Structure formats: structure tokens, C-alpha cells
């Protein structure tokens, strides 16, 4: 009210004074941001920050992105920096890698990572290995991003999780965000990283809102690649997970808390390099481990974590064998009841926790 009276009395000069005063007076505000918007904003800010950054992929420009992750970017940055490609993954992934070799910083979007299989030679042999083969002469600052893993009703060819495939390869960094904060901070770090980064998003998480603090909203908010985050402190058991499964772990933890079981939930954030230390430290406290992933069990993320724990200092702290909760070892079926039973559910996590704790 006071500001309104001020404005009416002394016109323009007063308005600017009022605006300035209003700025000083505003307290920091957290906002609700969906994972999709977080990705969008991260890309927008990085495109603005560095002229060498550009985005290419199918439907990323004029369609605003198949999943609307790149909405508004083409309108803002134009054809030069937001490029629609034909449906030729091997070709455009190779083009993106070549552009990175020659000094640009491309973001190469795969509509889903299932299609990255067409281009996987470019990701591994042209991008990941080149810095090593050239003994440091040729770096490849590229980000490959897109949705990974199971979606809803898209059946076998569109539901595979590639975390283990890419996580296998030296020369790549592989990142798997869960929350909006993860998406924002990790994508910015990935774009600023001078190495090839595979950025595994999740379609089912795109629309999920998370609270984002003022600090996280700042333009230089980065999450370091290679560091896990403890989303929930606990004492009885360590749950290690990535991407959407973190939500299920937290839900399971909430249910079990009512029974007096306190789960420590670790959000991996990065698949490669794997933050084994964070997991070990947690196990030394809780003495029990369950890993949870959406992908297939054989040679998967959980398999690697368990092997590392066996080989490391935390093994002696385990009071029972570590266990993996994974997707069912089958191609993803279509019918809803079948699909629902092909991926871990909260009850599966709770069941495994109780078995591990012998309760």
C-alpha cells in the first residue's frame, strides 16, 4: 500500500525507487520445479553462457522436444544452435562427436536411449576412447542425453535401461539424476565437463515437481559428477539407488519407519565414476545393503556395487549378504499388469529389506 501511494505521488522516479526497494525487501524463495523444467532451464542457461554449446537431435527444435524438454529453446536460440536432425542416429551422433572434436560443445539428444544402440559405436569408439588413444591430444566435450529405462506401456524395444552398458566403459562419465535439483546441477556439470558424458534421464520423472531452493536456482549451481547424495539418513540398512528408483526407496523407507526400521537412502547421482566410498561409509554404519535398480539383474549396476563392496573395507561390516532388487530378467511386456510386475515395486523393496534384516 505504501508503495502504491508513493507511485501516485511522484511518478516515474518513485516507481524505480519503489522497485529497487522491493528488490531489497524480497526474501529468498524456494520454488516447485519439475525435472523437465529443471533440464530445460539448465540447457537454456548453458546455451546462454557459452556460445559453443548447441543442441541437436530429433524434434528438439520446432517440435519443442519429443518430451518437451527443449521447449522454447529453438525460439530463443534459432537454427544455428538448436538443430532438428533426420532420423539417423548413427549419423547425427557421429556428427555431434566430430563437432566436439573440432571445438564445439554439443548436447546430442537421443529420443530415448534405446535408439542410442544405433549410434553406440560413435559413443564408445569415437567419443569415449579418443582422448586415451590420442594420449591426450584430442578431447571430446560432448553430452549424450535422453530418457532411459522403463516408461509406461511402451513395451520391450522402448524400455531398456542402459546404465550398465555405458557404465561399463572407461572414458565415459555416466550420470543418472533423480530429482529436479539433480537434473539441473548434473546437466550443467555435464555440459561444462570437457569429457563425454552420458546423461540418463527418466521419462516418468519429467513431470514430477521438486522443491528447489534459491541456491539451487542460481546460474552457477553445479553438482559434482562422481558424488552420491544421502537423501535420507538411517541406521539399520543402506539402500542404494539411482533415478526413479530413489523415489521408491524413499517411499519404502517411509513405510518401514513406522515399524521402527530406519533406512539410509543413497541417491547415486553418478553411475560412472561410482561413489563407492559413500556406500562403504554408509554400510560401516548400518551393516546392511540393498541396491535397487530398474535395469536387468545380470551384470547390472547392483552387481557392480556388490562386487565392489565384497572387495572393499565395508565387507567386514556386513551382517548379512548384500542383495540386489532389480527389474525382472525379461524383455518388457506390454500389458499393464505384466509391466507393473516387471519392475521393482515398493513392496519388493520392503520385502528384500526385511529379508536382509531377518525381520
Amino acid at each position: 500500500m505504501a508503495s502504491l501511494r508513493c507511485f501516485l505521488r511522484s511518478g516515474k522516479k518513485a516507481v524505480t525507487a519503489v522497485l529497487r526497494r522491493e528488490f531489497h525487501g524480497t526474501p529468498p524463495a524456494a520454488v516447485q520445479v519439475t525435472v523437465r523444467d529443471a533440464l530445460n532451464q539448465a540447457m537454456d542457461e548453458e546455451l546462454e553462457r557459452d556460445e559453443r554449446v548447441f543442441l541437436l537431435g530429433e524434434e528438439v527444435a520446432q517440435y519443442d522436444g519429443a518430451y518437451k524438454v527443449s521447449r522454447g529453446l529453438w525460439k530463443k536460440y534459432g537454427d544455428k544452435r538448436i538443430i532438428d536432425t533426420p532420423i539417423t542416429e548413427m549419423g547425427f551422433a557421429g556428427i555431434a562427436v566430430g563437432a566436439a572434436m573440432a571445438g564445439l560443445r554439443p548436447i546430442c539428444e537421443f529420443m530415448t536411449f534405446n535408439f542410442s544402440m544405433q549410434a553406440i559405436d560413435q559413443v564408445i569408439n569415437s567419443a569415449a576412447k579418443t582422448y586415451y588413444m590420442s594420449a591426450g591430444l584430442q578431447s571430446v566435450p560432448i553430452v549424450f542425453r535422453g530418457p532411459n529405462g522403463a516408461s509406461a506401456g511402451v513395451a520391450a524395444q522402448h524400455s531398456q535401461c542402459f546404465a550398465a552398458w555405458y557404465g561399463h566403459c572407461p572414458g565415459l562419465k555416466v550420470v543418472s539424476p533423480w530429482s529436479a535439483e539433480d537434473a539441473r546441477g548434473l546437466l550443467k556439470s555435464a555440459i561444462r565437463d570437457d569429457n563425454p558424458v552420458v546423461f540418463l534421464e527418466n521419462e516418468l520423472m519429467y513431470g514430477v515437481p521438486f522443491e528447489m531452493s534459491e541456491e539451487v536456482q542460481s546460474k552457477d549451481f553445479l553438482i559434482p559428477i562422481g558424488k552420491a547424495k544421502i537423501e535420507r539418513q538411517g541406521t539399520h540398512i543402506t539402500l542404494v539407488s539411482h533415478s526413479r528408483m530413489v523415489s521408491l526407496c524413499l517411499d519404502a523407507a517411509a513405510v518401514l519407519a513406522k515399524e521402527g526400521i530406519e533406512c539410509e537412502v543413497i541417491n547415486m547421482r553418478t553411475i560412472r565414476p561410482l561413489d563407492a566410498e559413500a556406500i562403504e561409509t554408509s554400510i560401516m554404519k548400518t551393516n546392511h545393503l540393498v541396491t535397487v535398480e530398474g535395469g536387468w539383474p545380470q551384470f547390472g549396476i547392483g552387481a557392480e556395487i556388490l562386487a565392489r563392496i565384497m572387495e572393499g573395507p565395508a565387507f567386514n561390516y556386513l551382517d548379512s549378504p548384500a542383495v540386489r532388487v532389480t527389474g525382472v530378467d525379461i524383455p518388457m511386456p506390454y500389458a499393464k499388469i505384466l509391466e507393473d510386475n516387471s519392475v521393482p515395486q515398493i513392496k519388493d523393496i520392503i520385502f528384500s529389506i526385511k529379508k536382509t534384516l531377518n525381520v
Partner: protein
Amino acid sequence: MRKMLTIISNVLRGSASRNKCDVHKLEEGPPLQAVLTREEGLQYYRTMQTIRRMELKADQLYKQKIIRGFCHLYDGQEACAVGIEAGINLSDHLITAYRAHGYTLTRGGTVREIMAELTGRRGGIAKGKGGSMHMYTKHFYGGNGIVGAQVPLGAGVALACKYLGKNELCVCLYGDGAANQGQIFETYNMASLWKLPCIFICENNKYGMGTSVERAAASTDYYKRGDFIPGLRVDGMDVLCVREATKLAAEHCRSGKGPILMELQTYRYHGHSMSDPGISYRTRDEIQEVRSKSDPISMLKDRMLSNNMASVEELKEIDVEVRKEIEDAAQFATTDPEPPLDDLCNHIFYNDPPMEVRGTNPWTKLKSIS
């Protein structure tokens, strides 16, 4: 007197049908005449001879088991590498497949560091970590082992050239075997759509490993395979033909017209690699015929001698110098120590803090620095 002599050299020679230029969706091919100065002639001669001798030395060292693994030799095709480089600038970019030693040289590598890379020593151009197929220099992106993969990469480099607006272009090479790869057609499409300054060059040496072009390609007119991309086909054994064609192609790209495709008809004396004797799918007679009638170095030599641009002694002297350079390089390549084991895990990531790499067992933690 001779130093000031400039000769007009007739690029199109008499009756030999291979010495014409075929065009596809192009108004006209390169000029029928080209100027070759004495300096240029001597330089091309020296470089081609260097490549030739270097490759023959590599053959020797391979048979002595000092070079191991894959070794794809370029002797016979020298005019391509030298002619192309003569048609572009060092500030332009180039990428090729695995038959790359010649290009590593023309793009600025030294014989020493190339040979030391073949022998896997620390003085190698990639510190011994890349080997024959993975050599890099400034604006030269290898050396690529996966057939055809280099073509999209090259178009990507061209995209960067266009994006950064420095009037540079990318020469993107592949062989007759690779020419059937799907990703190449994907690349033609995008390069054309986006008018990328990319010269696609097919080095047609008639054989994809052991398979002749007739057995591999439904259409062996590789210069036409770009369909909507203009193309030209020239004699890849004549360094001047290659140079003039490259100049035309470069002009095309730099004027913003988009990509262009060149087919160079050439020949390799060696088999596909050192594991291939190269005579099960072609006759010794054929190889001998090319050597006697179309050898790129002999052709240039004859041209220079018959036009009084150089004397026999002069060229012999260059031969001697080249031989010495190769001997010195081979000496270095065989005596330089192997890379230190400390280097094993380095160069995984660029610009990263040092990290640990798991060794062959859980207790072995190796160090990796950028």
C-alpha cells in the same frame, strides 16, 4: 635459370582414359591445365617419396616383428594424400580411416613420431597408446579404426567449421569398402541439408580388403553415390589431377554451396594390411602393371624431367636425403623406450583431477592423471 622456370603442365594426357575427369551434377570439372612450379614439383616429389619409403620401412619392421597388430600401408596411394594437401590449407581439417600414415605426415606429423608410434614407443605421436590406426595432429582427427565411422565425424568437424565461421573446411576420406556403409548416406543427407563445408573423398583402390569393388557395390560409380551431392572422379595416381580436383572442391565448399564428393581412382601395392599378402584376390601382373605404368612418384618424376624442371641428380639427391630421414626415424623408433607403466591409466579424462583406476585385482589401485 631453372629455379625461375614455371611450366604449364598438361593435366589431361593423351589417350589414357583414366586421366579424364568425370562429373556428376557439376557444371564442369577441374581445369584441363595446371601450373606446376619447380618448388611445388620438388616438394610433392619429396613428400611422396618420404611416404613411400616410410611405408616400405614399416613393412620391413613389421616382418621383423618390431611393429605388431594392424598395419595398413599406403604405398601406391601417395598422390592422394599429397595432392589433397596441396589443394587445401593446414588450417583446414582432415579425417580419414585406418590407412592413415601418409595423412599423418602431410598433416604435420614427423616420420620419427609416426614410426615410433608404430613401434609403440614413448616418442610416438600418441605416446605409443594409439598405434597405427590412431594418430592425431592439429586439425587431423585420425586415424579411425571403425570402417565408415570417420565420415559422420568429418561432417561434424565441417559443422564446427561453419558454426565458427572461420572459412575452414573438412576433408573427409573413406575407401571403396566403406562407401557402402549406411552411416555415410546418413551423413550425405545431413551434410547436404545443412550445407556443411565438407569434401567427401572416396579413395577407390579397387579392393575392400579382399573383395573387389564389383563384388561389393551395386554401383561402382562412387562419385555418383552421393546422389544429390555433386561429384567428380579423377585419376588418383596423378598428384596434379588430385590437387586440381581438390582445389575445385574446396572452392565449392568455401563458397557456401555445401558438400561435394570426389572419387580418386588409386591403387595400393600392399595387401589390405600386413596380414594380407594381397595376391589371393588380384594377380601379381596387375600389381606390376600399375607399378610400371601408373606409379605416382615415377609419373611426377618423368613429368619433371621431361619438362626440364629438375635433373636426375637432383631427384637422386632427394632420394638419398629421404632414405636418411627414414633410417634415422627407424633408428629412433627401434631404440626409443616403451612408454612407462606409469602412463598406463593416464589420459582417460581431460581437465580432471587425478583419480584412481582399478587394476587387474582389487588391491591394485593405479593412478590416472589427465
